[in-house]
């Protein structure tokens, strides 16, 4: 679908038709005093050639470190074909196509994406994506408040170790819309939600319970028990998932007696490269009963008058271009290009490939933690089942260790001391399928050396 800008003569013709002299005249009603002619402190424009040079030099500063950080974004292998195809002109747009007759390919791709997501989550419907994992949690909470009409409290319980950034973003987006997020206690001994903290909510009106699986510490929560507990109290269940983990774990649609109601999460592990926090994309799937409260639209497959298969946007009557302030969300768009990459990524890997990625990541993380905890002063904190992340505890502060490792081009992990001070000098590490035995050995020997430079505390 070509995008051709207006030519000078197109613009002249349109201005003549409405009797305006210039485009500037269309903005006459903005007073002079409010107009900004120049921006302060912005340097002169540079040529493409100069800009490329500047950006290459800056990109070079990143180096090519060995990455052992997870904590919500993961360094997985992306087959070369994924972005070769994604960046073809026919796909190259961040937006949902409204003009069905000109966009059958993109619409079919979104249809395939939604089909894959419902299959991974075990739920009935998926939207065409949101901005990222954090906003998908906020949107899921807002959706739960609309969908759970029996509950009047707009109270959202958040199980123990949810990604702290997700919680902060959810509070920022939904806090002023009357939602209250309350964190359930974490059992520092198991790395899991403390079941004894549930007791104080027995008689309370709870709208929804957010359960991250695997949780932020990489542990596997007892999602069946938590789901049944929530449902028995009339609360909806929001599952926060990692799509790669779903290749091995029970899908949210099968949690407990009746399954989670909504699943959300970060889509980045599916074919989107690590990139300073984005662009990534958010996943959102739910039961059919809640589809009219789901933000966004879905693509449906149908037949035309001659019986040929066709794809079309449907179920968008609740979006803001129609419902205004009463729309299901003020986020009207999605991350179409990231979804394109994810769909191609999943189609290349297949169910078996995704499962192998997940299994290799689990195995590598186990190798990593076994190797590192063999060092004096390092212990692996949890023996509870986990996915591809684990918590290590040190006998000395983590921050200077990470700085020293970064000097050796190793990103050693995510420092937990700020978000989880109760865990002590704790570090969250991850080794995906891209880490080799040599990488792990390089990390272990570098760590052994830098530990000599940091005092025991």
């Amino acid at each position, binding site marked *: 679908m070509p995008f051709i800008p207006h030519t000078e003569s197109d613009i002249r013709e349109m201005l003549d038709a409405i009797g305006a002299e210039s485009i500037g005249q269309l903005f006459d009603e903005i007073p002079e005093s409010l107009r900004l002619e120049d921006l302060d402190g912005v340097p002169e424009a540079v040529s493409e050639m100069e800009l490329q040079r500047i950006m290459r030099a800056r990109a070079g500063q990143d180096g090519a470190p060995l990455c052992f950080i997870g904590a919500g974004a993961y360094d997985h292998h992306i087959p070369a074909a994924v972005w070769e195809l994604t960046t073809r002109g026919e796909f190259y747009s961040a937006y949902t196509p409204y003009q069905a007759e000109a966009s059958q390919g993109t619409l079919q791709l979104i249809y395939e994406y939604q089909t894959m997501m419902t299959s991974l989550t075990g739920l009935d419907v998926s939207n065409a994506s949101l901005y990222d994992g954090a906003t998908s949690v906020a949107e899921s909470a807002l959706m739960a408040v609309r969908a759970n009409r029996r509950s009047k409290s707009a109270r959202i319980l958040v199980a123990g170790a949810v990604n702290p950034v997700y919680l902060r973003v959810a509070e920022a987006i939904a806090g002023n819309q009357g939602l209250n997020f309350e964190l359930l206690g974490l059992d520092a001994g198991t790395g899991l939600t403390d079941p004894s903290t549930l007791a104080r909510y027995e008689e309370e009106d709870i709208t929804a319970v957010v359960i991250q699986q695997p949780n932020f510490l990489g542990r596997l929560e007892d999602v069946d028990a938590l789901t049944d507990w929530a449902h028995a109290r009339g609360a909806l269940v929001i599952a926060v998932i990692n799509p790669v983990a779903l290749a091995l774990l029970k899908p949210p649609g099968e949690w407990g007696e009746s399954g989670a109601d909504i699943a959300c999460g970060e889509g980045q592990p599916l074919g989107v490269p690590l990139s300073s926090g984005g662009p990534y994309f958010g996943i959102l799937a739910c039961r059919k009963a809640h589809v009219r409260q789901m933000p966004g639209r879905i693509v449906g497959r149908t037949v035309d008058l001659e019986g040929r298969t066709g794809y079309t946007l449907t179920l968008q009557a*609740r979006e803001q271009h*129609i419902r205004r302030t009463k729309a299901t969300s003020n986020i009207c768009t999605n991350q179409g290009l990231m979804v394109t990459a994810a769909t191609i990524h999943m189609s290349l890997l297949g169910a078996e490939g995704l499962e192998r990625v997940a299994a290799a990541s689990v195995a590598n993380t186990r190798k990593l933690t076994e190797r590192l905890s063999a060092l004096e002063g390092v212990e692996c904190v949890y023996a509870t089942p986990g996915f591809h992340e684990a918590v290590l505890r040190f006998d000395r502060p983590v921050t200077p260790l990470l700085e020293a490792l970064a000097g050796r081009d190793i990103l050693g992990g995510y420092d937990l001391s700020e978000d989880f001070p109760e865990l002590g000098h704790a570090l969250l590490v991850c080794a995906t399928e891209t880490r080799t035995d040599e990488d792990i050995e390089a990390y272990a020997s570098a760590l052994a050396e830098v530990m000599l430079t940091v005092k025991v505390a």
Partner: protein
Amino acid sequence: MSNVPGELKYTKSHEWVRVEGDGTAVIGITDHAQAALGDLVFVETPEVGATLAAGDACAVVESVKAASDVYSPLSGEVTEANAGLADAPEAVNQDPYGEGWIMRLKLDDPSAVDGMMSAADYESGLED
């Protein structure tokens, strides 16, 4: 020409009210409203037990192109919602004053109905 039954009361926002002898009233949207909306694909009915004030948004009627609010014409408690609309929203199009009813309200003040528009008033409003 829209069908505007003489025995019902109406609102400017195109709801109708049929007062029953027991202090309750049945409420729906008019023939004119259903025709303007086009084929309905979904009707979100109110929760039984909900307390509504006159003018509160109480239901949503959704067509392929738009979703519109239905406003409660009177104050009261919802005692019944038309569960049949979940599977057959087209009843509102086909029989807006019968099978397509939306909810039953136990009125706080049955005499408030007297202040509503008559069929003749509503019909003349449609002609303007």
